[in-house]
C-alpha cells in the first residue's frame, strides 16, 4: 500500500495511536489499547444518510468521536460554475432535500438583488407560505423521527402521516413533492391552483392536532424526558462560535431568528410571530423548541393565507437573464438552520462562484466537542436531536 504523497502543509503522520488520524481510511488499524473503536456509519439507522462517526469507546462511554463526512459530496460549488441560473435552482433544492423549497429562496434572492429586481407582493407571499410549509413538513418528520431515535416506533408513523398531507399541498402547487423547482428570478413559475387555500387551511388544522399528539405521546412521556433531559447540552456562546444555527441555537437560549432579526426578506416583516427559545440547550430543549416552532409556522401560514394580496406572480424580467457583475450575500432562516449563498457574478448567464453556506455543516461540526464522555445510546439521541441532513453537510 503506497504511502499517499503528502500534500504541502499536511501534518506528517504522527503516532498512529493519536486519535485524530483514526478516520483516515488507511490508518484505521486496531489499536492495542483497551478501547474499542466503533464505526457508527456510513450505513447506520441513526445517521440521517451517510455520516460516519468513528467513536472510541471505553465500555459504553465515548472517549472521542470523529465525524467523517464526504460520502455524499456532490461538489455543488464546482457544478454551479458550469450552469445557468435556472439550472442551478434545480440543483440547489437537492441540498437539504427535506425542506427543498427553502433552499431556493436565498439563491433566488441573491440573484434578484444583483439584478435589482423585486418579486411582486403576491409572489413574495406564496414564497413565504411555501417556505413555512416546507418548514412544517421538515419539523413534523423530526418530531416523529426523534421518537424513533429514542426507541418509540409509533411517533415516526404519525410524523410521516402528517408530513404526507403537507407534501400533497406542495405538489399540487409546484408539481414536485420533494423538488418543487418553483422559484424563478423575479417571481414564481405559476400561480396557485384552484381551491388550494382552503385545502391548506384544513391541512393546517390537521398538523396542529398532530402537534398535540406529539406533545402527549413523546414530549410528555417520562421515559423520553429521562432519555433527553440534560443530554448533549450546547452552551449558547460556544454554539455560536461553532456556527450552530436555527432551532439548535435557540434551544440554547440564544434569541436570534433571521426571519425577525436579520435583513428583512420575503413577507416576514409583515407577520407577527414569536421566536421560541429554551434555556437548557439539551436534547429535550431542541425537541421542545421545534415542536413550538411547528405550531408557530402553522399560525404564520394561516395569517398569510388571510393577508395574501392579488396580482401578478412574475416581475418584468428579460427573457435571457444576464445578472450584472457584483457580489451578493443572502441568508435565510431555513428549517435546519441558517442557509446562505454568496453569489459572485461576472455578468454572464451563470454565476462565477457560489459559496453555499449550509446549516447542518456547522451544526455537526460541534459533535467532537459535544460527544465527549457520553454513553452510546445518548450519542444516538444527540444525533437525532441535532437534526441534520447529509445532503446539507456534504453539499
Amino acid at each position, binding site marked *: 500500500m503506497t504511502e499517499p504523497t503528502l500534500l504541502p502543509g499536511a501534518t506528517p503522520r504522527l503516532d498512529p495511536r493519536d486519535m485524530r488520524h483514526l478516520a483516515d481510511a488507511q490508518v484505521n488499524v486496531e489499536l492495542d489499547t483497551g478501547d474499542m473503536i466503533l464505526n457508527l456509519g456510513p450505513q447506520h439507522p441513526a445517521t440521517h444518510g451517510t455520516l460516519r462517526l468513528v467513536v472510541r469507546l471505553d465500555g459504553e462511554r465515548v472517549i472521542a468521536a470523529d465525524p467523517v463526512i464526504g460520502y455524499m459530496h456532490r461538489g455543488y460549488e464546482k457544478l454551479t460554475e458550469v450552469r445557468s441560473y435556472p439550472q442551478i435552482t434545480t440543483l440547489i433544492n437537492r441540498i437539504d432535500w427535506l425542506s427543498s423549497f427553502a433552499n431556493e429562496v436565498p439563491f433566488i434572492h441573491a440573484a434578484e438583488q444583483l439584478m435589482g429586481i423585486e418579486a411582486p407582493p403576491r409572489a413574495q407571499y406564496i414564497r413565504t407560505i411555501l417556505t413555512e410549509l416546507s418548514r412544517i413538513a421538515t419539523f413534523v418528520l423530526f418530531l416523529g423521527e426523534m421518537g424513533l431515535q429514542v426507541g418509540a416506533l409509533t411517533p415516526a408513523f404519525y410524523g410521516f402521516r402528517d408530513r404526507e398531507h403537507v407534501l400533497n399541498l406542495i405538489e399540487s402547487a409546484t408539481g414536485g413533492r420533494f423538488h418543487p423547482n418553483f422559484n424563478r428570478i423575479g417571481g414564481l413559475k405559476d400561480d396557485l391552483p384552484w381551491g388550494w387555500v382552503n385545502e391548506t387551511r384544513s391541512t393546517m388544522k390537521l398538523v396542529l392536532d398532530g402537534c398535540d399528539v406529539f406533545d402527549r405521546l413523546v414530549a410528555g412521556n417520562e421515559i423520553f424526558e429521562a*432519555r433527553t433531559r440534560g443530554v448533549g447540552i450546547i452552551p449558547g456562546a460556544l454554539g455560536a462560535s461553532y456556527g450552530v444555527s436555527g432551532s439548535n441555537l435557540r434551544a440554547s437560549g440564544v434569541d436570534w431568528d433571521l426571519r425577525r432579526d436579520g435583513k428583512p426578506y420575503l413577507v416576514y416583516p409583515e407577520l407577527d410571530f414569536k421566536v421560541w427559545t429554551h434555556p437548557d440547550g439539551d436534547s429535550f430543549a431542541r425537541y421542545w423548541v421545534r415542536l413550538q416552532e411547528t405550531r408557530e409556522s402553522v399560525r404564520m401560514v394561516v395569517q398569510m393565507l388571510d393577508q395574501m394580496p392579488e396580482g401578478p406572480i412574475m416581475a418584468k424580467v428579460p427573457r435571457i437573464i444576464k445578472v450584472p457583475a457584483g457580489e451578493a450575500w443572502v441568508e435565510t432562516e431555513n428549517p435546519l438552520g441558517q442557509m446562505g449563498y454568496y453569489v459572485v457574478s461576472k455578468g454572464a448567464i451563470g454565476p462565477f462562484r457560489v459559496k453555499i453556506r449550509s446549516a447542518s455543516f456547522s451544526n455537526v461540526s460541534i459533535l467532537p466537542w459535544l460527544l465527549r464522555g457520553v454513553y452510546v445510546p445518548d450519542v444516538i439521541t444527540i444525533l437525532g436531536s441535532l437534526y441534520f441532513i447529509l445532503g446539507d453537510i456534504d453539499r
Partner: protein
Amino acid sequence: MITLAADIGWGTVLAIKTVIVLGMIPVGAIVLGYVFLLKMMAHMQSRLGPMDPGGFHGWFQLVGDGIKFLQKEDIMPEQADRRVFAMAPAVVVISTFLVFIVIPAGPDLIVRDLDVGVFYALAVSSLSVIGVLMAGWASANKFALLGALRAAAQLIAYELPLLLAVVGVVVQAGTMSLQGIVEVQRDSAIFGFDGLGNPFILTQFIGFALFLVAAQAELTQTPFDMPVAESELVSGYMVEYTGFRFLFFFIGEFGTAFAFAGLAATLFLGGWGIPGVDSAALGNVLGPVALFTKLMAVAFLMFWVRFTYPRLREDQLQAVAWKYLIPIGLANILLTGFFKVAF
C-alpha cells in the same frame, strides 16, 4: 387420560405430549407475532399491516416469512467462532421449550405437573442469557458484542423482580405446582363470594404489575429493548444471524413472549380454570380456550406498552430494577405474608 396411559404405555403419552408442545410453540409464536406485531402495531400506526398474503388480512405473512428464512443462505462471519455461533440459537430456543412443560392448559393437559413448577419455570427461563451471550460473542461483531453485554446485564438484573413477583403468588396459593395454583384460584372465594373464584390479580395486583414489567425486560421489549436497540445496534446480538438461525431467534423471542404471557395468565388470571366448572372432561375442552383468551389479554398489555414507549438507557434500566422493582417486590411479599397470617 390415566386409563389411556395404562394401555399404550406411559412413555408414549409423554412423547405425544412433548410433540404437541413442541409443535405448539412455533404456532403460538406465529399467532402472537401476527396478531400483535403485524396487525395491532399497524393499526396503532394508522396503517393496515399485511393484507395480501394468504387472502384474508394477510394471515399467511409470518408463515411465509418462516419459509423464507428457511431457504435463505446461512451466512457465518469469517472470524466467527463457528461452533458457538451455531449453537447459540439452539440454547435460546431450548429455554423457551422447557418452560412449556409446566404450563397447564387443562386438568390433564400438562406435560409434567412438577410440584416445584413455578421455581422450575423461572429457573429454566434464565437459560436464555447464556444463549444470548454465546451469540453476541461468537459473531465477532462489535455491535453484537455490545448488544450481548447489555442483554446479559439486563436479563440478570430482572430475574430478581420476576422471582419476587411470583413469590407473592406462591405464598398465597400455598403450593408451587402450577396445577395447584390454578385450582386454588378457581375454587377459593373472596370473602364468601365465589362466583369469580379468586384470581390472584385481585389480591396480588402489585405482583402482577411487577411480573409484567419484569417479563417485558426478560423479553428485551421496549421500554427495555436496549440489547436489540434498532436505532443503535441494529439488532444487537442477532446482527450476524441469517437464514434458519435467525428463525430460531425469532421463534425464541415470540415463544418466550408466549410462555411468559402463559405464565402470567396462569399465575394471576387463573390459567385454564373457569370458576364453577369442575368436571375434568369439560375442563379439558374449555381449559385451553380460557387459557388462550387470558394469555392474549396479557400479551395485549405487553405489546401495547412495547409500541408506545421509548427506550430506557441501560443505566436507567438497571436503576429501575435495583432501586424500585426489588424493594416493591419485597414489600409485596411482606404484605402477602401478613394477610396470609391474618386471614
